[in-house]
């Protein structure tokens, strides 16, 4: 089944007329994702290689009924675009944009919770979601992943590709790869995505890739011990990160003594989650649990 994006996805893209936006939208379409439209204020009526562009999310919703929104607009316009998509009734918003102010993210998160509880936000500052063989929404390079039974959820893009590729080389595929992003106030947390993987028939094992900063991994550990029966393998990046220094991602910072990689790994291990110390080790543990030989589902 996979989670969040699949054959039923009807994608519209804010920022489709931009360089990055059009490039990745067309990439997603050539993968097989059903792209139904784009939104760029002032460019309604145009098209991007046959994909109709609308002035607003409301218009796009009326004309082409997207159920998934991808946000590619610059940081200062991103918060309003997310909320506009939600107000137009789009159920899933995937925000790729990096550099959105934390206070805007706070406003978006709390506004969605209060006014649009039916909309789920993934990101911002994330690589998107890939369900191999079904749909790709975002910038994840699909060629490394095949269809299979491993669900991956991660705060980092390239690290996900690294881990995913090692799993693929061992002969395993993925149900979905979900990037939740590296910002301080993500729309969805590890817990939200683990819940989806637990309920997903196709997923038999989950890989959680976390990093320093915040307490999302600790919360995931508690959730796993109570609600997740499928095996989970974890990785945490940033053991060598000094306190008080932001390591690339806005959310990747050890504040005082909280948010360290060691504390996160300990919290997960205390709840019985196996934590690999290198990306390679994560793949090895996953393969060991899944039973050695590759069991990737060959796409029909």
């Amino acid at each position, binding site marked *: 089944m996979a989670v969040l994006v699949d054959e039923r996805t009807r994608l519209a893209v804010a920022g489709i007329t931009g360089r990055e936006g059009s490039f990745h939208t067309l990439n997603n379409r050539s993968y097989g994702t059903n792209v139904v439209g784009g939104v760029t204020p002032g460019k309604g009526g145009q098209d991007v290689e046959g994909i109709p562009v609308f002035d607003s999310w409301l218009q796009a919703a009326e004309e082409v009924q997207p159920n998934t929104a991808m946000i590619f607009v610059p940081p200062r316009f991103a918060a309003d675009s997310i909320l506009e998509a939600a107000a137009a009734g789009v159920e899933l918003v995937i925000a790729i944009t990096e550099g959105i102010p*934390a206070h805007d993210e706070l406003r978006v998160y709390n506004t969605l919770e209060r006014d649009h509880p039916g909309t789920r936000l993934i990101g911002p500052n994330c690589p998107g979601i890939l369900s191999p063989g079904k749909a790709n929404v975002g910038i994840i390079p699909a060629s490394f992943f095949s269809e299979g039974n491993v669900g991956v959820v991660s705060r*980092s893009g*390239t*690290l996900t590709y690294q881990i995913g590729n090692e799993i693929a080389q061992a002969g395993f595929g993925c149900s979905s790869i979900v990037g939740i992003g590296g910002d301080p106030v993500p729309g969805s947390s590890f817990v939200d995505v683990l819940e989806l993987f637990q309920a997903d028939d196709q997923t038999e094992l989950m890989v959680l890739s976390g990093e320093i900063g915040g307490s999302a991994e600790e919360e995931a550990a508690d959730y796993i011990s109570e609600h997740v029966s499928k095996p989970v393998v974890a990785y945490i990046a940033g*053991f060598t990160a000094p306190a008080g220094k932001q390591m*690339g991602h806005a959310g990747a910072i050890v504040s005082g003594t909280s948010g360290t990689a060691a504390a996160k790994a300990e919290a997960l291990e205390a709840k019985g989650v196996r934590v690999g110390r290198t990306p390679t080790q994560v793949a090895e543990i996953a393969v060991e649990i899944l039973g050695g030989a590759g069991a990737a589902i060959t796409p029909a």
Partner: protein
Amino acid sequence: MDLLEYQGKQLFARHGLAVSQGKAVTTVEDAVDAAGKVGYPVVVKAQVLIGGRGKAGGVKLADDESQVREHAANILGMDIRGHIVRTLWIEHASDIASEYYASVLLDRSAKQPLVMFSVEGGVDIEEVAEKTPEKLVRHHVDSLKGLSREEAVQIATEGKADADVVEGVADALTALYDVWTQEDATLAEINPLIVTPDREVKALDAKVSLDGNALYRHPENASLSDSENEDPIERRAKEQGVQYVKLDGDIGILGNGAGLVMSTLDVVAQAGGAPANFLDAGGGSDAEKIKQAVELILANDSVKAVLFNIFGGITRCDEVAKGLIAAFAEIRPSVPFVVRLDGTNDEAGRTLLAEAALPNVHPARTMNEAAEMVVALAAGSGVAS
């Protein structure tokens, strides 16, 4: 982006929070001049972005000109745990009846602002939270509504502020919340928030962190960072828009993607090495960008070997290889490089590198292998490649 005390106090004053009159200076003569203007007695305070200034001798009371001269001369240039004091804040000394604590921060877990208040100020607040948690009031604010007057009074009352200053503390909390929201701060902390004998509530210190992503809304705050005390390589990286953090080791690191770079640092450390930096080259792969990155890494004299760890997604490994070859032609580094190219067009990239036969560049296939090689090279032993 962390602000110095005096910069934080300037923001506080802008939002109506009471602070003592003071002046920021960089020379002994200016310190004497400032002390005369704000009026004796004064406090001479080192402006550095690190705690424990007082214990290190960076905060001194001065009753007259000769004392200001003496303290200013001692403190200017002082090294407080790696932070050189270049600026002093000369402030009129306050009489203190009580020391409280107040802060507003982003609670990432609750996804709401958290206001904290305690009458146990002037000490490490983490210690208060641990030993006497009942003395620390923690109040989540609905960020869509903001902090109401009633809430501020309730926090002050609940925290057992002296009855006659509950209103004053509520004013301070409200102003602090305004600083937090209107300046796009991620942290606004006052420790201590003092009550004077004539019952005025005043910020005696200021710790403010601003969100760098929101600076476009606050052009007036852009110059507030402690750029003089910043590491010179970090400052250069920032100007070039490169994510670089200097570390203590001798192995230079470059990778693409923040998570992968953090992971690379860890894997190098596990192999027994010590990373000299974090550098995320991002998605770009053109020669100019790679040249800039290599120059930044090599600007650190401690670097004895460099590890390039690229997992090409959208970034194509052959483009990275071309960039590296072009960069090497110009820079001609004297330290060995280990280059691991994996992902999109990795074979083509490796072939290009092999054909270019760059001196002292060692290809690696996996991240773990690359880490072991670079650690051996940094230690001065050879590598069988």
